[in-house]
């Protein structure tokens, strides 16, 4: 590594007013875009590409990376405050973020999300700076066998996010995997479960499904609670003295931030696997390794930290294959690849030889984008936290119309609004009968990846699936998945036992009251 060139590049980027200004603008836009359900960082980057035509490479990359990092944090704002993840990468943040908000700790949850997002992003940027050639080399060894087992590993997390009933969690997961098969078969184009309805040919779009399952279901349930007098109006009485988490909180959450950031970076480095998978893997891993897994899902800072650091860690991870091999790690980096090509630079191994100063400046721009995201986020925490004190009777209709517009805007298609409403009803009913929703989401993300790689692997090996045993990385993933499943079952049983004892105690106390 050329240290003097690296420091020079960092100094150039951090002293350029234009680059700093663009990073700020990008972060602000990314946070605002990410907070609207349905608007993703990918969409933001794609929208702003034309605006970066006239700029130099580094300011334009800083603008786009600002949107990328800002969007990752922005998605958590609506997940924490209104139970509607703004982006798929924030889907796991609501598992603990929303309960924290319900406890009156919205500001704390937001500041933890922002801080974890920043740390994850910095960790990703550092890994990208120092280990990118090595990580990229490892990630590129992944063939269909490894990708299949990676998907299986992602699915193994379902057990730990299933809640009280593992059977119900797995039913939800298989239902999600089945839903993922609706439309044309990815290999032969055969029609599956479309019943002559043409818009179903491309299956259910992920974002309308996500918005429906969480935002619309929450609105329907919220209306029911208000009518039954069960809805409590939250008042933002929480005094936000520090926009960053205090030292004692940081002490508690730092292991989750580090592990989440590393998981995010590693998963982000694998082409085709992004923040949406990383957050669930990080949540499952951190929950399983926690001393108090029973507290996860009840609104603890560790849950928010584990997921938020993972999703922004992905931003650094996804840049690794882009810069080292010219292969985008996710949808946003695919758009970024276009930006590089537009400027006459072809990312890939030769970039490290011919354009090393540019590579280092991109590293610095990512670091800067994370820093500006933190500053913009800090400035906004107090404002965002006030949203929860809005009258729920006004907030629910607003969430409904904004969410349905978000669903429409993905493909500019009314069919997606219908899909969103359908999944809203499904989500409402599943919540009512205590079937967890997160496994469906994870299954919808991993289902297509699982099927495509399964079919590809079996076809390549002439129908011999057991050839997978000759792939050491795939076998490693399989063993880790099995260990995760067994450990999660053991943990869940421990949680159920503890809860049962608590109930017994509570019942005993009630019966003693004369």
């Amino acid at each position, binding site marked *: 590594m050329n240290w003097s060139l690296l420091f020079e590049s960092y100094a150039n980027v951090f002293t350029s007013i234009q680059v700093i200004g663009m990073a700020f603008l990008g972060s602000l836009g990314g946070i605002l875009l990410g907070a609207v359900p349905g*608007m993703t960082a990918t969409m933001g980057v794609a929208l702003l590409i034309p605006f970066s035509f006239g700029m130099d490479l580094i300011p334009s990359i800083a603008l786009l990376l600002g949107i990328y990092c800002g969007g990752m944090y922005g998605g958590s704002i609506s997940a924490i405050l209104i139970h509607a993840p703004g982006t798929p990468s924030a889907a796991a943040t609501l598992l603990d973020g929303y309960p924290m908000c319900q406890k009156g700790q919205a500001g704390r949850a937001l500041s933890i999300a922002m801080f974890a997002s920043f740390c994850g992003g910095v960790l990703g940027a550092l890994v990208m700076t120092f280990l990118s050639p090595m990580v990229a080399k490892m990630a590129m060894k992944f063939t269909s066998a490894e990708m299949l087992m990676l998907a299986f590993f992602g699915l193994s997390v379902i057990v730990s996010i299933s809640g009280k009933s593992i059977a119900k969690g797995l039913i939800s997961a298989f*239902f999600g995997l089945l839903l993922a098969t609706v439309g044309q078969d990815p290999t*032969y184009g055969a029609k599956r*479960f479309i019943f002559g309805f043409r818009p179903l040919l491309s299956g259910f779009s992920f974002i309308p499904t996500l918005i429906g399952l969480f935002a619309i279901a929450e609105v329907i349930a919220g209306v029911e609670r208000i009518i039954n007098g069960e809805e409590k109006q939250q008042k933002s009485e929480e005094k936000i003295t520090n926009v960053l988490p205090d030292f004692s909180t940081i002490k508690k959450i730092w292991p989750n931030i580090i592990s989440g950031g590393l998981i995010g970076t590693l998963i982000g480095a694998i082409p085709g696997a992004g923040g949406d998978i990383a957050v669930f893997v990080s949540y499952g891993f951190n929950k399983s390794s926690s001393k108090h897994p029973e507290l996860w899902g009840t609104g603890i800072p560790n849950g928010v930290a584990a997921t938020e650091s993972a999703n922004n860690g992905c931003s650094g991870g996804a840049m690794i294959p882009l810069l080292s091999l010219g292969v985008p790690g996710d949808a946003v980096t695919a758009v970024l690849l276009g930006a590089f090509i537009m400027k006459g630079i072809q990312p890939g191994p030769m970039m490290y030889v011919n354009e090393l100063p540019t590579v280092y400046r991109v590293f610095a721009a990512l670091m800067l984008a994370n820093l500006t995201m933190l500053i913009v986020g800090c400035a906004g925490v107090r404002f965002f936290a006030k949203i929860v004190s809005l009258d729920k009777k006004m907030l629910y209709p*607003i969430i409904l119309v904004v969410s349905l517009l978000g669903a429409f805007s993905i493909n500019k298609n009314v069919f997606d609004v219908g899909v969103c409403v359908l999944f809203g009803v499904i989500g409402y009913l599943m919540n009512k009968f205590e079937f967890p929703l997160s496994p469906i989401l994870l299954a919808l993300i991993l289902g297509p990846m699982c099927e495509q790689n399964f079919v590809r692997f079996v076809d390549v090996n002439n129908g011999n699936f057991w050839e997978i045993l000759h792939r050491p990385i795939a076998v490693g993933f399989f063993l880790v998945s099995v260990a995760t499943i067994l450990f999660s079952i053991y943990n869940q049983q421990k949680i159920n036992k503890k809860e*049962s004892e608590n109930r017994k105690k509570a019942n005993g106390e009630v019966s003693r009251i004369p």
Partner: protein
Amino acid sequence: MKKTQTKAFTNLICSIILLIFEIWAYTETMDFKVHKRAFVQPATFPQIMICGMAIFTVILFLQSCIKLTRGMKPEDPENEMSASINPFTNRGVAAALFVIILCILYTLLFDKLGYVLVSACVSVIIMWLIGKRDLKVIIPVSILVPLIMWFIFYKLLTVNIPMGVFQPLRDLVDKI
């Protein structure tokens, strides 16, 4: 509390409904196109998923049966009262059902009447339904929120949203 009001009983009913759904879905997969040279047929993956779902549905069914026949301890979470879905006995469920119907109408009228009008109407109705009576607040909020959202999406994010009867407004904004 009657056994039929417990969560265990609800789970039993849910598992029966799910089993019927799985049988139906499996029979549907039999009609999928078959490719002679393919090692994995288009129906294979959905069938594996349905079988997986069926296994855990049977487990849920058996768990519920055992709990209902052998009896449950008072601290058993399955012994709690299950959530109601009867709109005739629960006003909250009736309101939720009404919101679902509104959402369906919203989808059907989205293209014809346009986003702003449909959203404003739905907002007013829901706010009124859940007890907000201050018209000075309801009407401006219901109109302004969809209008602002439309403006942001249309002008800043270049998403073309159906405006229906408010089409002249779009023309006006375009002219400005």
